[in-house]
Each structure stands twice: as C-alpha cells, then as structure tokens.
C-alpha cells in the first residue's frame, strides 16, 4: 500500500497550500507544522473533503482525485471528531456495520467502554476524540489520516493510546498520515516526519534527522532546537571547526565543508550550565549571565545571556543534575559538546524567526 501525492495545491483567500509531493508506504508519516500551516487541508484533500485546485493523489496506483469520498477508502479522523450527534458512541463506532465484538475490542483498547452508550453531547472532550478514532478504525480503511487524534487527552492517557496506536499501525501495514503538534508523539509514532510551513513541506525525514539535523532554521526552531544563532566560520576545514558567535568561540564537529556564514543550532538539553567556578566540563565553554529561570516541572529552562554577544542561549536543565542553585544574575559557564552543534549553511534559507519566536 502506497499513498502518493503529486503536485497537490489548494488556494484559499489569503492562504496557499502546496504544491506538495509526498509518498507514504506502509509506514507512518507524522506531519508537524504550526497552526494554520495547512495540515488539515492536506488530509482533507486526500480524503476528498477538500477539493484541491491541482495535483493528484493515488493509493496503490488507484487514483483518488476526482472520486467521490466514499470510494477512496481513506479513513480520516477529523480534528474535531465530526461524530454523529444523534447516535451513541457505540452506534458511531459500528456505523459501518462493525460486529459487536470489534466495537467492544476497540472500546477496550481506547478506554471508552463506560462511554459507549452515551451520545456525543454527553461525552467529555477526550472521550469524543477516542470515539472518533475508534469509528475510523472500525471502518477498515485502506489508509489512515489522523488529525491530532490525541490532542484532548491528558498526558498519561495520551501516552497509553500513543503506544496502542504504535502497535496498531505496525500491525496494519497501511499508509498512515498522522498530524500532530506533539513532538514526542511524532518521534515515537512517525517512521518519518514531514514539517509543513505555510502550506509547503519544509523537510521530510526520519525523526532523528528532523530533530537533530534540521535543514533550515525554521525546522530547527519548530522541532525544539531553540538555539539557532548566526555564526561565522573563520576556518572551515576538517571534521572540527571553530564557530564565532559574536566575540565568543565554540568548537563544532561537522560532516561536510561549511560556508563561512552558518546557523549554529543547539538543542536546549545539550546545553550544559554550571556555576562559573565549578570544574571545566567537556566541550567548548562560554560564559554568561542567567537572565531567567522557568520551572517546567522536571526541567528548568534557563536563559543565559552570553558574554561578548547579544545572544541568549536556552538551556534545559534537570533538577539535581548539575547541582547548585541557578538564580537570575548568576554568572555561569555554558558548555556545549562539539557533537551537539548542528550547522546549517546560512545562504538562501530565511531565518524563520518570524514564525517561531523565542522566550
């Protein structure tokens, strides 16, 4: 089973989607992208609920474009569920004539057994979402299009369902397009991730590549690499180069030759922060002043103004890992392992900072 999308386009007043070309085999393609970047439009165009202006969609060679929705066999879970309000959850799920056992099994799987005999109006947000998921799976589609199917669920439930879905997708061997804004879900479920920006695919690749080797500052920032700093490479040969960021210098390991102007990308978790007087750590060290500390539960987000530059680095620091209190105004030493720096040539790529702002 392969889902092929070629030259797909759709224009709304003020928004242009595409052209998008993608091919999804018996795998899960996670689609990430900012709100309003065209994710739902993309799924709709495959399912047939949105009429594209141009382009072709085919499933295993069978063309879908121009066909009525019901002949596409593309199971879509709408972002808002689109449950039938006059039917109970059970009737919604068995809408296609699914056997009782299968309904029970899906309900069990998605933890909605207690909700089965209620109408959507009497379901909680998360219950509704799970019923929608079960309804689509019950129809045995030839490909699966899921629009943020777990967004209304609490974290533990979402994690359990994510794992359920992981096993299910593996067992089904269908093309699955999974729109999500949860980076973790995308990483865990996606065999590949596509990052959408303003209706176009900015990068597609395996999760590791997307997260750790983004090809543009936008993808970097969008996938959690909060530190994207303009840098120059005075001396760019060999596997190890020196990067100049303002007055400071850091060492980075690179795989190819790099141009003189680059973006230096570092994920916050790879930024080590230690009190200025503690022992020198592995990797290049910078000095700076803590400007803000945000408690995010397990992690603290530490913003450090790097001395000699007007840049701020974001570090994600775990309680008790580095020890010692980190309060604003503390002078700290910032260490970045050379392998943690990803370098993007700063040639024709736009900055992308308009789209993804920093703290």
């Amino acid at each position, binding site marked *: 089973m392969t889902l092929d999308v070629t030259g797909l386009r759709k224009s709304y007043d003020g928004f242009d989607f595409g052209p998008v070309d993608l091919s999804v085999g018996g795998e899960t393609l996670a689609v990430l992208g900012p709100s309003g970047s065209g994710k739902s439009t993309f799924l709709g165009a495959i*399912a*047939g*609920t949105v009429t594209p202006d141009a382009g072709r969609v085919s499933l295993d060679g069978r063309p879908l474009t121009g066909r*009525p*929705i*019901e002949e*596409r*066999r*593309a*199971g*879509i879970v*709408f972002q808002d569920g*689109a449950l*039938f*309000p*006059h039917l109970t959850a059970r009737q919604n799920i068995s*809408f*296609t004539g699914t056997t009782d056992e299968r309904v029970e099994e899906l309900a069990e799987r998605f933890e909605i057994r207690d909700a089965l005999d209620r*109408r959507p109006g009497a379901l909680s947000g998360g219950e509704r979402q799970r019923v929608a998921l079960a*309804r*689509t799976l019950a*129809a045995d*589609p030839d490909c699966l299009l899921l629009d943020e199917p777990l967004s209304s669920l609490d974290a533990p439930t979402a994690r359990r369902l994510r794992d359920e879905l992981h096993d299910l997708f593996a067992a089904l061997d269908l093309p699955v397009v999974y729109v999500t804004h949860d980076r973790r879900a995308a990483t865990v479920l996606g065999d590949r991730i596509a990052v959408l920006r303003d209706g176009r695919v900015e990068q597609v690749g395996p999760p590791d590549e997307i997260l750790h080797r983004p090809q543009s500052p936008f993808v970097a920032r969008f996938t959690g690499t909060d530190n994207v700093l303009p840098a120059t490479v005075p001396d760019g040969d060999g596997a190890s180069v020196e990067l100049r960021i303002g007055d400071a210098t850091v060492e980075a390991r690179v795989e190819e030759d790099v141009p003189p102007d680059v973006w230096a990308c570092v994920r916050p978790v790879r930024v080590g922060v230690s009190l200025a007087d503690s022992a020198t750590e592995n990797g290049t060290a910078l000095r700076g002043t803590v400007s803000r500390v945000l408690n995010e539960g397990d992690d603290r987000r530490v913003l450090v103004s790097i001395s000699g530059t007007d840049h701020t680095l974001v570090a994600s620091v775990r309680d008790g890992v580095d020890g010692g209190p980190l309060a604003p105004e503390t002078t700290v030493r910032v260490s970045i392992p050379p392998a943690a720096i990803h370098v993007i040539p700063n040639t024709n790529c736009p900055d992308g900072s308009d789209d993804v702002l920093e703290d």
Partner: protein
Amino acid sequence: MESPTERVAGRFDWLSVTLLLGAVLLCYYLVPLLALVVAQPPGAVFARLTAPAVIGAARTSLLGAGASTLLATAFGLPLAYWLARTDGRLPTLLTAVVVLPLVLPPVVSGMVLLTVVGPNTVVGSAAATAGVPLTRSLAGVALAQTFVASPFVVVTSKAAIEGVDRRLEHAARSLGKRRFTAVRRVTLPLAWPGILAGITLAFARAMGEFGATIMLAYYPRTMPVQIWVSFTTLGLDEAFPIAVVLVGLAVATLVVLETLGTNPLE
C-alpha cells in the same frame, strides 16, 4: 444569602416573556376552536361519529391526506435535499416555484389542475382508461391535496437540511457509505425535527383542504366537503359537529405522528 432584589432579577425570566407574546397567538388559535368545540352538544358530535356519510368522509380524508403526505414526502424530500445541497442561483429560483402553489387560491389551483389531469386531458384520459380516474376519485383527492400541501414538506425540509453540517455527511462517506446511505442515516435524522414539521404541516393542510379538492373531486367526499354540504343543506347546527369530528380526527393523527416521529436527538 441572596438579596431579595437579586432574587427577583433572577426570576424575571425572558423565556416567560416569549410565552406571554406567544400566548396571544395561542389564544387566537384556541378561543375560536374552543368556541367551536364547546358550543356543540357532545351528543350531536357523537351522533356524527356513526353517520355513514361522516364515516365515509373521514375515511376519504384520512386516506387522501395520508396518500398526499406520503407522495409529498417521497418526492418532496429528494427535491428538498437537492435544493439544499446544490449551489448557485437555480435552487433559489426553484424554491420560489415550489412556493407558488400556495399563492394560488385553492379553487384556481383546482381549475388549473383540471387543465392538466382533468378527464379530457391526455394524462387524465390515459389514466381513466387504465382504470385510475384522476378526478372524482380518491386519486383526485390525493392529487389536489398534494398540489396544495406538498410545498410545506419541500420548503421546511430544505431549510432543515441546510442546517445540517455537510461535514457530517462527509464523515459518513469517508467511512465508506454511499451518499444515499449517508443522507439516510445522518442528514435526514439530524434534519428530522424540520422534516417532521413539514410533514405535519402538509398533513394538516391536506386534512383541511377544500377549494382544490372540490374542483378535482367533489366525490368521494372529504371531511371539509362533507362539512360544506351539511352546511349548505342543513345549516351550521349540522355542519359544526362534523367540524368537531374533523378536529378530533386531526388531533389524534397529529399525536400519532408526533409520537411515531419523535426527534431521534431527544
């Protein structure tokens, strides 16, 4: 504790104001009807219940109104669906056409219908040859009532179907159901309150229809014709008890309709 003024403010319910206004209209319906019902000695009404002419008329009225309501629903619902789900100016234009039968005075409707299905027309004589005369027959009653009453089904159902989110139909079709099934199982149940309203109006109007019926089919007599005949031959005292029977008959049928046709969403 709530202060007294707060309580009063809380109790001053806008819903009651709507009922107050509505009650004016309700009284306008009820007072004449009650005047009619109360003025008739129950004995006179019961006597009519067994009069063969009245029984025959009741049978004709129920059969005719039932048939025309069925016809109106069978042909009107698809039309309503098409009008609701098609874009462009054509549906607006056709909706106006649907309303036109209401504009003609019923007697005129009857006369123009005669020009189409009358015994001397192509349609009429063909049907009569086939043993289904379209005038002076139950078929005539149903045809007259359909012309006059079916617009209610179309116009009201159209509005109701327009109110149903198209995306739900899409969702049903994305589950692999044909459009027809999606409409039958999703759109129509959701539009049901409106459709039922249309059917109710059509049935009631068919029961009360007189002008067009009397042109297409004086015989077999419907209740309104029977009432009119009784009135012209014997006067009000004879006619009003039959009107009470008609009202009773209609109430009974409407209650059955409401009960069988309960809104599936409630």
